[in-house]
């Protein structure tokens, strides 16, 4: 009935290492210690009115044991850990469906290993149906179904119409076997079974550690044959729960929807794809380039202030004098320069010294002109001419006579490349000068850096 997934132990005893199993094993180790005869939690039978409550211990017993035996210092942490373990069903309050730990006289009981989450695969709705059916057969007031249980039973009855005979039969058989048991044992087992279902089909509104509920379980078995009866009714109680999201109505997709899906997937297929080798290459290149800048991988010089509490590094960074390594980084690309505030400052200074602002603005304007639509070009050419080159221009730039003459001609019949000569004139000598200048400036020893910068600028 239950789905046999890869959880639990194989017959060779090798434990499954899925994350859930690891957590379960940790909890089970604590439980094993709790259940030790000598140093564990004292389990006793409590006499109450005319009955005996077997095999219980109190919430405060648990908390005290935890504080004494685990590395726990305060009550809050013990309660938290205990509540987590209870939510997974390793122990449970005997008279409450809500699985939390309280530091008081509330009675708790251990869960039998059969019902541990590590040993019991996710139970299916068939098992739940058998259980609920069995409950209705055992006529005891305390075993009466709660509202949400009765609803689930009705729903399951509709869903499992064909199987219902078997479910009923099995429930009967289980009830009969149950009756043969010793009365005390029966009490214990009943409570354990109920606690198990409190974990896997929790009371609406409770934390659901298993993340499966009656609807999801129905879906898992028949992914495409979702029965209307199970989804037709939106269970109001369930939608009030903060942890449950109402399942979407399952319906057949229409032709348009299918067409849309087809087009979508075809588009996805046509998407530009990169070769993995290229991607890997670029990732490797990036990592190699930046490895010395990552403080996790390369300890910073002189020391990492977060570790050594020595703030020399930060003081150095804050000063206006950038170190060699930092400058080297600027050579990676214009973004690096602009990211670093000191870099920005230096760059601006550099630009100002080499490209006085009119030159830079002219250069940028011409670049922009080249991208304009052709109908706007004549007007823009005129504007640029007026601003930068005409006699008495507000931001006059300095070009040689030859370029100037050429440009004057071009302006009469304006095209995108009217200012090409002038632009080159401004640009080229600057480049040479930049290189020589860089030797004396903070770009010392890294002429490549400035070259890259200027080439970047030209591509703007």
């Amino acid at each position, binding site marked *: 009935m239950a789905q046999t997934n890869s959880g639990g*132990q194989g017959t060779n005893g090798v434990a499954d290492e899925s994350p859930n199993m690891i957590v379960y094993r940790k909890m089970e180790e604590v439980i094993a210690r709790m259940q030790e005869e000598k140093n564990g939690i004292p389990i006793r039978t409590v006499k109450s009115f005319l009955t005996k409550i077997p095999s219980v211990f109190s919430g405060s017993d648990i908390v005290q044991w935890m504080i004494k035996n685990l590395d726990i210092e305060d009550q809050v942490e013990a309660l938290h850990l205990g509540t987590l373990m209870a939510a997974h069903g390793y122990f449970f309050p005997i008279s409450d469906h809500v699985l939390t730990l309280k530091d008081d006289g509330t009675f708790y009981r251990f869960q039998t290993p059969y019902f541990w989450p590590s040993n019991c695969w996710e139970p299916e709705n068939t098992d739940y149906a058998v259980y609920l059916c069995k409950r209705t057969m055992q006529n005891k007031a305390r075993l009466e179904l709660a509202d949400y249980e009765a609803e689930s039973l009705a729903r399951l009855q509709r869903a499992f119409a064909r*199987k219902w005979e078997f479910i009923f039969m099995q429930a009967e058989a289980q009830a009969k076997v149950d009756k043969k048991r010793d009365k005390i044992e029966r009490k214990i087992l009943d409570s354990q079974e109920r606690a198990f279902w409190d974990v896997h089909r929790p009371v609406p509104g409770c934390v659901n550690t298993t993340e499966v509920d009656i609807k999801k379980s129905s879906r898992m*078995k028949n992914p495409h044959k979702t029965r209307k009866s199970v989804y037709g009714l939106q269970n109001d109680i369930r939608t009030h729960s903060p942890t449950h999201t109402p399942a979407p109505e399952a319906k057949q997709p229409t032709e348009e929807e299918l067409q849309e899906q087809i087009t979508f997937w075809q588009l996805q297929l046509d998407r530009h794809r990169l070769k993995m080798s290229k991607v890997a290459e670029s990732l490797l290149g990036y990592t190699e380039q930046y490895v010395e800048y990552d403080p996790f991988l390369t300890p910073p010089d002189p020391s990492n202030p977060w570790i050594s509490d020595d703030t020399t590094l930060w003081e150095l960074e804050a000063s206006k004098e950038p170190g060699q390594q930092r400058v080297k980084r600027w050579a990676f690309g214009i973004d690096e320069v602009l990211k670093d505030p000191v870099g920005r400052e230096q760059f601006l200074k550099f630009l100002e010294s080499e490209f006085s602002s009119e030159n830079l603005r002219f250069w940028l304007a011409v670049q922009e002109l080249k991208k304009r639509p052709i109908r706007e070009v004549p007007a823009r050419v005129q504007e640029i001419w007026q601003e930068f080159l005409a006699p008495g221009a507000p931001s006059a730039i300095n070009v040689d006579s030859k370029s100037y003459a050429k440009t004057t001609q071009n302006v009469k019949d304006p095209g995108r490349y009217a200012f090409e000569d002038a632009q080159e004139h401004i640009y080229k000598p600057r480049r040479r000068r930049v290189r020589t200048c860089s030797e004396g400036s903070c770009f010392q020893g890294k002429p490549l850096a400035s070259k890259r910068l200027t080439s970047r600028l030209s591509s703007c």
Partner: protein
Amino acid sequence: MCSAPCGRKKRPRSAGSIFPISRGAQAAEQERRESREEAVDDSRMTVQEFNTLVALYREQVISIGEISADCPSLRVQMHHTRSKGCSMARAAHHDLALISGSGPEDGEIPPEICRLFIQLQCCLEMFVTEMLKSMCLLGVLQLHRKRTDSEPKVDFRMDESSDVPILEERSSSPTDFPQEQWLVGTDIENIERDMREMRNLLSKLRDAMPLPLKNQGE
């Protein structure tokens, strides 16, 4: 073939042969129907008994690992229940196969038989699952034993008068542990074997199932 354990009488299949051959076809048809009804009744009973055994087995599996339960005797009980269950399952499958095989001439399969098929299938599925769980639990128990009992409970007391250390008397001496583990291991193998057999049976049942049921999935 099922024998003593289920205690039901084996009815001869060839019920028609005890009547004189001169009997009319109508009467023969009557006999066939009656015998088929009896066969169906028998099948129903077998399936029910199998169902009860599965419930019993489940109960026993739950007791594994409980502190109070005594493991060796419990495992013996489980073995017993399991064997009975397997033979029940085989018998039920055999009977159902016969009934559906010697199907009614008009080709219509009575709903009774369909229901029996479903019941048997569900019972078998549950049986297999419970066996799987029992294997799992026994395996865990074995591991626990290995871990907690790794330190031999041996008390070395040096008697002043002798140089030989005296082992303290215990109800289960250290030599029992490896044997116990071996027994559990054997049990697990047995369960695995039974499980395989039941799984085969289940697939055979699915094949033998009347067509309308098969198409309904599940």
